């Protein structure tokens, strides 16, 4: 009731939400359940059975990338959060620095590094090691995801961890907690909001990416993102099928996020 009185204030936001969120969503749902002539059909959804393996692969690669991000980012964020305030700022900037460069450019850089005749293989060749098949593998795609999305894991983790008072950790030590007890009984539970936010912010873009897989797998690995893209911009051109795929992807993400609790966090906004 109290909200009603101040309804006027919310109008711009409401309009924004309707035009840019609700309306597109309705369109996606509409296209997913219609054919090219506009008639109702379930063919788009039932036809998705052919793409289960693509969904599955996307899920696996995104999950691996998310776990790797978490494992790499966790100690980095913790150390960052324990530094003096001034140094924290400088190092946080270094974490953000790559994000100022164009996403495509960064991924191109990885291409030239990973190529069969690329920098890494040439360097290893000096010592008589390799060359390795690195580009055009699933590993390269995961690497691209981890590299690009790592800051999105570090920042929310860091935000949650700076709130952990050093004296709370000392209190745990004082009460007899060694390294692992400290980690599992105090630091992990207290950084849970950051973990949830971080997982969401890495997993969601990773599962729907198409550019990373396209560039680093040379078209060898197709993820849902690539599939959807080809329905709208590629030669397959079937936006009804593309909408159905998007809809299912959305449901899958929602399901997974509700399992990890990634949505009951206000910290998402705090980080961005």
């Amino acid at each position, binding site marked *: 009731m109290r909200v009603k009185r101040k309804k006027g204030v919310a109008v711009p936001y409401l309009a924004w939400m309707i035009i840019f969120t609700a309306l597109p969503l309705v369109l996606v749902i509409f296209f997913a359940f219609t054919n090219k002539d506009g008639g109702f059909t379930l063919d788009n959804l039932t036809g998705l059975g052919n793409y289960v393996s693509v969904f599955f692969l996307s899920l696996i690669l995104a999950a691996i990338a998310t776990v790797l991000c978490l494992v790499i980012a966790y100690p980095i964020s913790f150390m960052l959060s324990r530094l003096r305030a001034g140094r924290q700022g400088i190092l946080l900037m270094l974490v953000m620095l790559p994000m100022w460069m164009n996403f495509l450019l960064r991924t191109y850089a990885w291409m030239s590094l990973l190529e069969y005749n690329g920098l890494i293989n040439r360097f290893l060749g000096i010592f008589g090691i390799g060359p390795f098949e690195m580009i055009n593998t699933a590993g390269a795609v995961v690497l691209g995801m981890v590299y690009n999305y790592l800051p999105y894991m570090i920042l929310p983790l860091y935000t949650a961890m700076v709130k952990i*008072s050093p*004296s*709370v950790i*000392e*209190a*745990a*030590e*004082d*009460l*007899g*907690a*060694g390294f692992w*007890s400290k980690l599992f*009984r*105090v630091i992990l*539970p*207290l950084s849970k909001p950051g973990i949830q936010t971080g997982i969401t912010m890495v997993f969601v873009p990773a599962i729907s990416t198409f550019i990373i897989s396209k560039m680093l797998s040379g078209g060898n690995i197709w993820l849902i993102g690539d599939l959807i893209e080809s329905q709208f911009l590629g030669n397959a051109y079937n936006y009804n099928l593309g909408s159905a795929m998007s809809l299912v992807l959305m449901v899958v993400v929602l399901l997974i996020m509700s399992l990890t609790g990634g949505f009951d966090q206000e910290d998402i906004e705090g980080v961005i």
Partner: protein
Amino acid sequence: MRSIRVEKYSLATANCKRTTHYHQNRVINKGVVLMDQSVIISLKDIVVDFDDEAVLNGLSLDIHDEEFVTLLGPSGCGKTTTLRVIGGFLAPKGGQVFFDGKDITALPPYKRPVNTVFQKYALFPHLNVYENVAFGLRLKKVEEKLIREQVLEMLELVGLKGFERRGTEQLSGGQQQRVAIARALVNRPKVLLLDEPLGALDLKLRKEMQIELKRIQQSLEITFVYVTHDQEEALTMSDTVVVMNKGVIQQIGSPQDIYNEPMNAFVADFIGESNIFEGMMPKDFLVEFAGQPFTCVDSGFAPNELVQVVVRPEDVQVVPSVAGQLTGVVKTTVFKGVHWEMIVEQGGNEWIIQSTVASQPGELIGMNVEPDMIHIMHRSDEELAYAEFRPEDPEEEEAEDAG
């Protein structure tokens, strides 16, 4: 055991008087190593520095079993640093820490048989009251039934029965404090370290908690090492007060000793209000200060030795100007509740006087000081430096906080 200690301190005090210096802790240490079995924690020549600035300068201190010891001093004096060295949170650059005769200098905090009550309580925000208190016992893999028993017993001791399921942020400052105490005590430490635990509480609650803490310490018969900058708190609760300044122990003694027999100008100035004067002892039982000779009860000084004289504000008697040993003009008079506090100008000296009778500003009054109300201290350049001490020194405070 207790009587031995008291005797020892008075011996040390006497020594100091004779040796013109106050390395009292050294004297005690020597005695302890030979004869005293009741020492539970012993610090030997502890050196700590932050960014090349010495915070503790070869500090040595013995703490006895079942004793309530207070480390007292201004911000930056190294009292918290000393506590952190005992707790194991800070590795000293030099020196050793002994617990029950064993060297524990290299032992990490989680292996030390002491527990700490932190300045801002440091409760686990993700656990409720019960789980906070149970934390230490769970780590020791104590049986669930025993945990329950002991946690409830401890919560009862600190007066928080029925609060088990509460979240910590639902508690008031005083209640959080009690949880922090219960959480530390449930592990049955032989020594409890308390770092300004009452600092965040309001005056009335602080007084209540002072009595409560003393009660807990006595009923559990364990050692408390208590850090505070509040001299009244130190005098109220302690068996022994350790006055510190600039990383050096100034005096160790019972609250009465510290107040009545301050070893130097710093202690006299820091503990309660003092009038401190430069003076001279022409001979035993006679001292000259404020331009007058006074009979006193002190002896053992060199003839014509330069000394410092302490007179407590409540020990100055206000009399009619004709009957006074000294006369002075009242500058200000302020009502303080139990007494009036007056600043009196006397021959270039300023006296603080506390009296139940007010004299008006501008009034000429007489002042008398009884012989046994005059306390005489040896004078050294070092001590003179302390006389210029001012409690607030932001740089030092920073150094202390960094620890």
